[in-house]
C-alpha cells in the first residue's frame, strides 16, 4: 500500500482535489498525479491482467518505459497510466486480458 505524505502532515503541500472513476467507483486524487500514482495511492497496485496469461500487473517503472500500467481511459484502451495526468471526471477502466474480436 501507498499513502500520501500530506495525509501525515509532513513535508507535502496539499493540492487541488481531482475526482476520477476507476471501474465505475470514484477516487480522489491530487491535481498533477499521473493515473498510475492515483491508482497506487488509492490502494490499487494492479491495473490490468496480461493478454498472454491473464496474470495481474501494475505500474512498474513510472516513466513510460515498461508498458505494464496500461489502462482504458475515457474509452481508449492501452493508455499508459504513468504518462497520463488525472483530469476531473476521467473514467479509468482496468484492462482484463486480451480483447475479444466481436462477431
Amino acid at each position: 500500500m501507498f499513502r500520501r505524505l500530506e495525509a501525515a502532515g509532513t513535508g507535502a503541500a496539499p493540492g487541488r482535489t481531482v475526482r476520477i472513476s476507476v471501474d465505475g467507483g470514484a477516487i480522489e486524487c491530487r491535481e498533477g498525479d499521473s493515473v498510475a500514482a492515483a491508482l497506487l495511492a488509492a490502494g490499487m497496485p494492479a491495473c490490468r491482467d496480461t493478454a498472454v496469461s491473464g496474470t495481474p500487473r501494475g505500474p512498474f517503472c513510472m516513466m513510460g518505459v515498461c508498458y505494464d500500467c496500461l489502462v482504458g481511459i475515457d474509452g481508449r484502451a492501452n493508455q499508459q497510466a504513468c504518462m497520463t495526468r488525472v483530469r476531473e471526471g476521467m473514467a479509468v477502466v482496468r484492462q482484463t486480458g486480451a480483447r475479444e474480436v466481436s462477431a
Partner: protein
Amino acid sequence: MNHAATTHDTLACDLLVIGAGPAGLAAATRAAGLGLDTVLIDEQPAPGGQIYRAVTTTPVQDRDILGADYWHGLGLVEPFRRSGARHVAGAMVWAVNRTEDGGFEVAYTTSADGLAGLLHCRHVILATGAQERPFPVPGWTLPGVITAGAAQILLKTSGVVPEGTTVLAGGGPLLYLLAWQYLNAGVKIHSILETTPPGQWRQALPHAWGFLRSPYLGKGLKLLRAVRAAVPIVSGVTALEAVGGERGHLTEVRYEAGGERRSIAVDQLLLHQGVVPNTNLSRAIGAEHVWSQRQDCWEPQVDGWGATSVAQVTIAGDGAGIAGAMAAEHRGRVAAVHAAKALGRIDAAARDREAAPHRAALALATRGREFFEALYRAPAQFRRPVGDTIVCRCEEATAEQVRQAARMGCQGPNQMKAFLRCGMGPCQGRFCGLTVGELIADEQGRHPRDVGYYRLRFPIKPVTLGEIASLPQTDHSRSAVVRFKK
C-alpha cells in the same frame, strides 16, 4: 469535433533537443545562448527529466526530504525558461528521418490532444537519458513490486510513499538515495537486501584515488551512514524471489544470504540494479553502439563532443553512457557548442574556447565514477536468470525458454523475436533486451558484444493509426500512397 485542432502546424528550428533532463535543459539553454533557434521536446508535462522530475511542481515542499542535489535542478530550469528556446512539453518523439536537404523530419505525438505533429530541424541532440537495468528475479512482475526509480518518481511527483512493510533490494547509489529520502520523509523501511557482493570493493579499490578526490566521497559517506544507522542492511544477498498470494499480488520476499534462506512478509518490494542508457531512439536513428565492458550494457559510440556515427546527431547525458546528473549537464553544454559549430554558427576556434570551461567541469564531475562502476557492478546471477523467471515482461517469455532457443541455435536477439516474440511487445525490448543478449551469450559461450542487440525501428514507441493519420499531409506522404496508373 473541433476541426481547427486536427493537425499541428509543422515546427521548424535549427536545433532539436529531445529530453528535458539535466543534459537536455543545459544543451537547449546553451544553444539558444549561442544564437541557435532551438526547440526542446519532452514527454513530461514539466521540465526536469527523471532526476529532477517535477522539480517545479512537486508537492514535497520540505526541501530536506529530497535533498539539495534535487533542488539543484531549479538552477537549470530557470535559465532555460529565460533562454528563448521553445519548450514542447508532453510530447513523445517516435520517428526521426533524414530529409533530402540533409536535415531531419521528426514525428511526435502530443499527449494533451493525441495528435501527431512534424518538426523540421538541421541538427538533433538526443538527451533521452537512462532507464533502470532489468533486474529479472522470480516474481518481479507481481503488483507490489516496483523499481526504486518508480518509487522515487511517486515521491517527487505526488508525495506518494509506501506504507506497511517495505523492502528495498539490489545495489547502487539510487537505492541508498531513495532510502535516505524516505528516512527524511519519515517513511519506515523494513530492510535493504544488498546484492552487491561484499568482496567487490576489492575490484573497486584500484579506482579509489579518483573517488577520494571526488565530491561523491563526502556526500556518499554521510548518506550511507544515515541509512545504515536507521535501516537493517542484509549484505551479500545471492538469491532473491518475490512471491505472490491468492490475488496474485506480492506477499512475501524470499532471499538467500550467507548460505541461509530467509523470508519476509511484505507489502512492497522496491528493486534496483543500477541504470543503463536508453538506446531505443539512438539505435533506430542508426547510430553505432558499443558494448561497455565496465557497465555491462550497450551505449552509443560518441566522441568527446557527443557526436555519433550519424551526421548532425549528437548525444548528451546518460543516454550516451552513464555518468550521472552533474556530468549530464556539462555534456549537454559541450554538445550545444558542438552543434553551434556543426551548424556554422561559430568557428572551430570559438567552439574550443566556448567548450573549455564545460570540459573542465565535466572532468571534475566524472572523477570517481570508475569506483562506483566497479563497486556496484550488477552480479552475473542477477543479469543472467534461469528457470521460469520472466525475461520479457510484455510477452512473458521465461529465462529457460530463451536459453532453450539459444541452445537450439537461435542466431541472436532478432531471431529470438521469431522464436518467442521476445522484445515484440509494447516496451519494444526496453526491459528484456540486455537480458536476452546476456542469456544467448551464456548459452552459446559468446560475448554479449558479439551477440548484439535487437534491431530497432521507428516508431520507437507504439502509436495509433489515428496518430499517424493526424500527421500533416506532405508531398512525400501523398506520393507514398498514390497508386500508379497501369
